[in-house]
């Protein structure tokens, strides 16, 4: 599609000063309202004329949603905290180095200076058929253009495809799932707290959404419990270019070991399904096993069980197998703590 370089089509703009005002606007306009955080995902949709919201609620002025605070032995991160502020925060560096690596791996410096953690986890998929305005399942139609015999689907899903084969592009999402983060969601009817693992949804639950957020809902904060602070972390992202690109696959793990035995761990992948995938079966299989090459090999093989590659993304199977292997075994010199 040709890139359009003139001014976006008109919309009504609101820049509320606090969460209450934002929620009342979202409640008033419901599905006509578009929530904008850093805007890096939003502007592509608006400039390309693919999404035409009547009302944009820009959270840039909601200062109470910015910043990282200690919360018990964990952290509470305001949803409008930029990725740069997250990376520079001493508590993140000290306790959850993996989240720093994941956030620093996203996009480019200017995007991290403006893009927020809330936006990073709530962004839409980058499937180009969908982004270019093709009327696919996710856009309300009845076909998946990325899953036809001639489709270009190198970046698409190998797990849990249900009509749609798009993938979640977030780098921080698997890290937050591994760290057992909780998402704090508010609306005019109250507050709910959702496990990071269940914040993301696949096409089987709702093919038009990537997260549990419904019209009127606002992600206000992400809480990371102290459970995994300072444990052994592994994060790795594989992409085509070192800057800008979304992950082909990324992996995040947290682990506690004792005398060479894996006591406990959590392991998540992204870029392989419409939602980040927590590898519960692998976790259960390696718990209590010695941390060695053999266990890692088994974990890697288990991780790709049930994978269904498309025509051009078969390479993701060895990629996942090896990334999971590394996450279990570790790679010398690459530990964040």
């Amino acid at each position: 599609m040709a890139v359009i370089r003139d001014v976006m089509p008109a919309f009504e703009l609101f820049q509320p000063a606090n969460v209450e005002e934002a929620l009342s606007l979202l409640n008033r306009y419901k599905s006509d309202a578009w929530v904008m955080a850093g805007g890096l995902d939003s502007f592509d949709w608006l400039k390309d004329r693919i999404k035409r919201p009547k009302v944009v609620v820009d959270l840039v002025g909601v200062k109470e949603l910015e910043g990282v605070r200690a919360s018990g032995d964990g952290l509470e991160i305001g949803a409008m905290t930029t990725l740069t502020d997250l990376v520079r925060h001493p508590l993140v560096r000290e306790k959850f180095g993996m989240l720093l690596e994941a956030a620093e791996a996203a996009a480019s410096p200017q995007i991290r200076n403006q893009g927020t953690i809330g936006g990073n986890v709530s962004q839409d998929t980058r499937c180009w058929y969908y982004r270019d305005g093709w009327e696919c399942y996710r856009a309300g139609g009845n076909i998946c253009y990325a899953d036809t015999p001639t489709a270009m689907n190198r970046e698409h899903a190998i797990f849990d495809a249900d009509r749609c084969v798009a993938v979640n592009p977030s780098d921080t999402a698997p890290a937050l799932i591994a760290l057992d983060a909780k998402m704090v969601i508010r609306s005019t009817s109250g507050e709910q707290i959702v496990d990071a693992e269940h914040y993301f949804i696949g096409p089987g639950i709702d093919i038009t959404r990537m997260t549990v957020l419904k019209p009127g809902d606002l992600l206000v904060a992400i809480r990371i419990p102290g459970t995994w602070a300072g444990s052994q972390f592994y994060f790795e992202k594989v992409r085509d270019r070192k800057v800008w690109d979304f992950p082909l696959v990324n992996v995040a793990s947290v682990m506690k070991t004792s005398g060479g035995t894996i006591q406990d761990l959590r392991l998540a992948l992204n870029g392989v399904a419409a939602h980040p995938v927590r590898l519960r079966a692998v976790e259960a299989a390696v718990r209590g096993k010695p941390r060695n090459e053999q266990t890692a090999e088994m974990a890697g093989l288990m991780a790709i069980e049930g994978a269904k590659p498309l025509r051009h993304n078969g390479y993701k199977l060895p990629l996942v197998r090896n990334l999971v292997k590394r996450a279990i075994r570790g790679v010398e010199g690459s530990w964040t703590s």
Partner: protein
Amino acid sequence: MAENDPVVTADEGQRGVSRRNFIKGVIAAGAAVSTTSYLFRGGSILGQPSLPGAVERLVTLNVNGQQRRVDVMKQETLAMTLRYKLGLTGTKLGCDRSECGACTVLIDDVPHYSCSILTHSVRGRKVVTIEGLASPTGQLHPVQQAVVDAQGFQCAFCMPGFVMATVGYLKTNPNPTRPELAHGISGNLCRCQDYNKILDAMMLAAEYTRRSSRA
């Protein structure tokens, strides 16, 4: 009234009749016309009750240390305002999709893609473009001087963006290693593929910046 409008007087310091200045003059005049027409019918709009967070069309921006009054559409990006309303055409528009870095400006000393931020979002914040780097007497900023001395760019379309990204990055890390600097300004593309030369120039820029802050 229009004579007091800073939009109109933006380029009065420059008397050249180059193509560039002629175009900038036309842009400034257009902005003045649209601003004036807004003022004439502004009264009826201002009386209406508004929802919390509603924005006004006429805003005052802090650009390069000056207060600039400008008529801004709700969906207008900062790059559009800078180039086509304020005549600050040093900020380039490459991709208009946060993918090239040519439009990089500093907002409160932090590099941002001006194509991907609403002008309304920078009210009350300090915007600096490539035009705002040199001192009022015309002395170049150390980063600009280094670019000139090292002849860092080939076609230089990407240069204003690279310079702004470097100025912003050096504020957070004044003494970078070459790989650190490369990572710090990795949000800018050069289609001449002149990256090594650009990095040479920007390492020199870091040295000049350190020297000027000591002086």
